């Protein structure tokens, strides 16, 4: 049929489902899930945590500091971002947080992009050469790892190894804190803030904790992405990516520990599969409105359609509990 190679498209999908971008998305979505899925915080600027983490690390390394110092700076940047966003807004209604966070993310990106700060942030060009010491400790010998075309070079293997370990640790952390009384309190706050207050819960403190922790996990995602590519650039950190993270959380199952991981893998699998299929189908021809340059955007249409279908037939996401998802508030 149309000379399609479904198997090569599947291999492309499966490769991207386990590769570094999926890993970065899984990590970022895990942070967002802690905020949105467990605490009910509408953070529309989650990408900013990845950006401050990545730039905190990149600027430190660029200034000649060792990588481990850069990692600490990245984490501190995530904490500071969470506090700056949370302290003034968490006493207000939920929608204020959404507006403030998306604005803050855009402001930060524009500032980092500014040519006046080129000496520090690299402006629009960004900062490169930040991962040399990361790859210097790569234990994988040169070569390709995997089976046939489902394979990765030694550097990707190293990023993937570090990345998936980070994802596993983040999941373990989220599982531990959300299945504790702290997590029960956080879910109660998500369900009804006023009622939680009436029972003596310090709602503001718990929400701030969730926001900061999610922001730190987001910072790790940003650092991982920067280490994999070896550079940072403002154009990575546009607000659209935040909504991709939301897509991943919803796809996998809101408020579940492994939902963001499964969601990220599914997201990249579908994106990559359809990218491959559409590229093969269209080639250099045009079909109606779709031309050779439209394959990139078209795959997002397919992903959008997949999410709509999922929400109709499986509103709880891949891993969520259907009964829980369908509980009515009143």
């Amino acid at each position, binding site marked *: 049929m149309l000379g399609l190679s479904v198997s090569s498209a599947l291999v492309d999908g499966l490769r991207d489902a386990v590769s570094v971008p999926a890993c970065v998305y899984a990590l970022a979505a895990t942070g967002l899930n802690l905020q949105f899925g467990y605490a009910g915080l509408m953070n529309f600027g989650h990408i900013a945590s990845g950006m401050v983490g990545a730039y905190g690390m990149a600027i430190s390394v660029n200034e000649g500091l060792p990588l481990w110092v850069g990692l600490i700076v990245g984490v501190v940047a995530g904490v500071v971002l969470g506090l700056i966003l949370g302290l003034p807004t968490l006493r207000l209604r939920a929608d204020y947080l959404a507006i403030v966070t998306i604005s803050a993310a855009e402001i930060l990106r524009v500032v980092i992009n500014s040519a006046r700060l080129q000496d520090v942030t690299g402006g629009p060009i960004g900062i490169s050469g930040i991962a040399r010491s990361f790859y210097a400790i790569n234990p994988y010998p040169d070569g390709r790892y995997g089976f046939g075309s489902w394979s990765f070079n030694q550097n990707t293997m190293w990023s993937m190894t570090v990345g998936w370990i980070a994802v596993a640790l983040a999941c373990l*952390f989220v599982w*531990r*804190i959300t299945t*504790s*009384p*702290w*997590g*029960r*309190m956080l*879910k*109660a706050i*998500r*369900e*009804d803030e*006023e*009622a*939680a*207050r*009436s*029972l*003596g*819960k*310090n*709602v503001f403190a718990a929400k701030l*904790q969730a926001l900061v922790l999610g922001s730190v996990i987001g910072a790790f995602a940003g650092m991982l992405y920067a280490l994999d590519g070896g550079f940072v650039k403002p154009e990575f950190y546009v607000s659209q990516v935040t909504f991709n993270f939301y897509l991943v959380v919803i796809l996998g199952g809101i408020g579940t520990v492994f939902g963001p991981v499964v969601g990220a893998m599914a997201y990249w699998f579908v994106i990559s599969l359809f990218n491959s299929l559409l590229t093969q189908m269209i080639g250099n021809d045009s079909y109606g409105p779709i031309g050779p340059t439209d394959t990139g955007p078209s795959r997002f249409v397919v992903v959008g359609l997949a999410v709509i279908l999922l929400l109709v037939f499986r509103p709880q996401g891949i891993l969520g509990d259907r*009964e*829980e998802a369908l*509980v*009515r*508030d*009143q």
Partner: protein
Amino acid sequence: MTSDGFLIADDVRRAFGGVTAVDVDHFEVERGSIVALIGPNGAGKTTFFNVLTGFERADQGSWAFEGTGLAGRPAYAIARSGLVRTFQTARVFPRLSVVDNVALAAPGQRGERLFSSLIPVRWRRQDEELRDRARELVGWVGLGGKADDYAGTLSGGQRKLLELARAVMAAPRLLMLDEPMAGVNPALRQALLEKITELPSEGITVLFVEHDMDVVSAIADVVVCMAQGSIIASGTPAEVAADPVVIEAYLGRSVDDLRDMSTGAPTAPEPAEEP
């Protein structure tokens, strides 16, 4: 009323724009009693509740619970001090189980501190005890069969019962119930009434808002009547029910007018004649 300094409020005012919602000169609750707060719609009962429990800011005034001033303190701190309230429309946590709804209300949970939550040995045993206690309370309000269901599956009346169990779990010394009977069907009503009358023997003083005078007469030791933001009468249920000021507040006319009505004398203007 002898003052034992349990809950005392003085000169509490709260206005919304030009409307004075609460204007209470003096109010107190005695330890171990069941106090009913009655009054017509819009009398300011719920606003007064909200002010006392920190859910609404007071424009002025002071109130103290067991000798500690509460004015200006945040709602969660007031709840921790032993003054716990419920809401007019039951507010449960729909996506938590019935038992979790109750268990989480317990004060002083070690596992609610973020760093302790990472180390289960620091909270596991306490949490098991709390969950056992929560299960008991769920059974006490007659929801034992629903203990593991999501609270969102409960009916309105069942939510009221769950809210009562949850509030008791929060270890109050003064429990403030805002219309505990609203939306509860007659079959559950009697059960709920009995639960409330058991509370003082458990060391829980009760202050509740209610419209139904039968309920008030049945369980209240003291009745306080509010109208237009102020307290207009207080005493035993019988005294308050017979107080002309109370009757006037409810019916919008004086007792003399009512007496005239009962003798057949017209008090309202005659309806305009049909043209």
